[in-house]
């Protein structure tokens, strides 16, 4: 029995961390947030093989497991990396590999030369007047908060849990500013946009959704860990009343509570990612609970870490708010915790 990461996985983690630390420091995140490009970040990650991780070997990828991807997602969250990881490296490869027929596109995704965004909002929890319909090879309607803003294609999920592929050039795309400036979202308007049916099997949609949810949870795990680390560091340095504030129980207990809530989340994310590939009976339920639980813990850590930083935590100077908002959007994307827990209940026949 070995519940943890393999040597290869630790190596992968180290490589991604080193790249993000060196190439995507907070100044560069800020530059992206102010309207800059993420092309260099994604190109660098492509060199590390990140978009190829989940692409099958036969399609030009590396064919690794969801757990490998979760390790990368955690690092992306830790560094609030502005990268189209969720769509291009996780959900699109998962969906496109379901039934074959997309070998060429998968190869381009693996190489990092093509990006595929996701528009799942209308299937997960339709808001406002958005909805999509497909007829005669054409999509109509609109999607809100599709990610990412610079994708070449979009994987669109409909209310009946079918998935479609549409080219960005065939849709009208409008930026939708959100509080989270580390990942840009858009509104997609379809006007008889030519689209391909990727899958009309709801199970394929659910598999794609589950892995997306686990990756968002992993991203939150990383982001929250970064916030805890920063809070501990700050509390050791900052002095008031002639003492480091970290020596006051009021402050150190906040840090202990963050650690106590967050540490089991690591095992949970690992297990949920492992289950996606190896424990099909448990995969859906653990994915739902992991998404919801990390959303709650992420919210708690984001608030508490900000409070440990005092007034500085509230400022743009420290930049802690990038992590706060990252946790916040991970919480809402692909289903807010209450909605996902209701799914968990339904899976067990409790609804």
């Amino acid at each position, binding site marked *: *029995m*070995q*519940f*943890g*990461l*393999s040597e290869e996985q630790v190596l992968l983690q180290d490589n991604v961390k080193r790249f993000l630390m060196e190439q995507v420091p907070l100044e560069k995140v800020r530059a992206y947030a102010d309207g800059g490009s993420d092309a260099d970040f994604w190109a660098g990650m492509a060199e590390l093989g990140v978009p190829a991780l989940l692409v099958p070997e036969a399609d030009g990828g590396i064919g690794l497991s969801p*757990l490998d991807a979760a390790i990368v997602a955690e690092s992306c969250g830790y560094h609030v990396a502005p990268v189209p990881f969720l769509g291009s490296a996780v959900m699109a490869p998962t969906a496109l590999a379901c039934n074959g027929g997309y070998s060429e596109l998968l190869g381009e995704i693996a190489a990092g030369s093509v990006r595929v965004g996701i528009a799942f909002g209308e299937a997960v929890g339709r808001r406002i007047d958005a909805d999509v319909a497909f007829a005669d090879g054409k999509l109509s309607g609109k999607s809100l908060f599709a990610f990412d803003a610079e994708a070449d294609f979009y994987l669109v999920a409909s209310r009946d849990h079918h998935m479609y592929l549409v080219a960005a050039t065939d849709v009208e795309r409008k930026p939708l500013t959100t509080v989270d400036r580390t990942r840009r979202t858009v509104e997609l308007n379809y006007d008889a946009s030519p689209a391909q049916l990727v899958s009309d099997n709801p199970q394929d949609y659910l598999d794609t959704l589950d892995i997306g949810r686990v990756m968002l949870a992993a991203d939150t795990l990383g982001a929250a860990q970064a916030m805890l680390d920063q809070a*501990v560091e700050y*509390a*050791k340095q900052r002095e008031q009343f002639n*003492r*480091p504030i*970290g*020596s*006051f*129980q009021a402050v*150190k*207990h906040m*840090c*202990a*509570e963050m*650690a*106590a*809530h967050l*540490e*089991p*989340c*690591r*095992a*949970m994310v*690992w*297990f949920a990612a*492992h289950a996606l590939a*190896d*424990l099909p009976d448990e995969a859906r339920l*653990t994915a739902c*609970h*992991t998404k*919801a*639980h990390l959303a*709650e813990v992420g919210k708690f850590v984001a608030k508490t870490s900000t409070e440990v930083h005092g007034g500085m935590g509230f400022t743009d100077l420290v930049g802690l708010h990038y992590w706060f908002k990252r946790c916040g959007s991970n919480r809402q994307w692909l289903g807010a915790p*209450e909605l996902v*827990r*209701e799914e*968990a*209940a339904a899976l067990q026949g*409790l*609804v």
Partner: protein
Amino acid sequence: MDLSFGPEYENFRQDVRTFLTTHSDKSPSGASLRSDDALAWQKLLIDNGYAARTIPKAYGGYGAQPNIIESRIIAEEFAEARANPGLGGQGISMLVPTLLEMGTEEQKQTFVSPTIHGDMVWCQGYSEPGAGSDLASLTTSAVLDGDEWVINGQKIWTSTAHLADWIFCLVRTEPDAPKHKGISFLLFKMDTPGIEIRPLVDMTLNANFNEVFFTDVRVPKHQIVGQRGEGWMVANAILGHERDSLGNPNNTLTRLNALTELMKTETVGGERMIDNPVYRDRLMSIQGRVMAMRFNDLRVLSSRINKDQDASLARMIVKLQGTELRHDLEGLAIDIMGEVGLAFEDNPYLRAAGSWQYQYMYFLGLIIGGGTSQIQKNIISERGLDMPREPKFEKR
């Protein structure tokens, strides 16, 4: 990631199952400490290696090599079969491991075998009215007079003192030494003249604890574990054992399943509680937390098997998170029942013999006992996160 225990353990699991099928009729259900049934069952378990498994044969145990996976399989199978896992208590779970590590050969010969067989029942004399979280400030004194220690002082929160034959007790023997270095670890009989036991009723209205008073209690000099002034070191080894055993996520899972069943049978206005989305969401929140703690437990278990894996923080948070989670879980059951959740003792509407009410209160006790949640947070922040310690104040 490899979650299986491996095929070599399947035979072992099968052996445990066969034992349980053959002998489960002898398993006492909630038998009292010294009943013949309980003692016979304990002996059967030891003879077959399902209790006192790693205690050397020379001291009355089964004499197996420590193997975490085997222990886990035994625990799982006993839980699955709802078989009595054998005797527990502070003598078996805390004193025996300590004696094996720090006791003299004579102490091991004298105490281990009768303790694990249930013939010698122990209580633990640590906390005092003035020494709770700051245990090392304890003041019960032991002064050497010839070949005997003379003990004076008071202990509190002493569970099973009224049932115990012996006590393992922390006393101050070196009043002039720094507080952690002036403590010794003594063993003595509870029927020694000068010991008075007063039951301490807790919020469950049971007397789970006692106060124990010592007035010129005379104890043979050699009944000390470790050297004079080493008692704190001895005691800390035991506290480590205690923290590991509190907040076990597998027991919590059993309670979660019972809670889910409760929600399917309890109704309000004719509607099953499980069909009420507000209560259902609370159940799902708890289920998510239980899941996180179960996986955390697997990670801790794995780190004990694979020594290169570090899960020290994962282990450190178990007592805090596990007891708080369990209290929340039991509390949800009370809310599910509403007024019925207030029923107590002879109330005809009492559910599950009042176990929800009892556990809800009992786990508040466990949040406080064995190192309060606040002490746990000190430990997590200072040892786990390397944060600065609270400045110490000189004694006034």
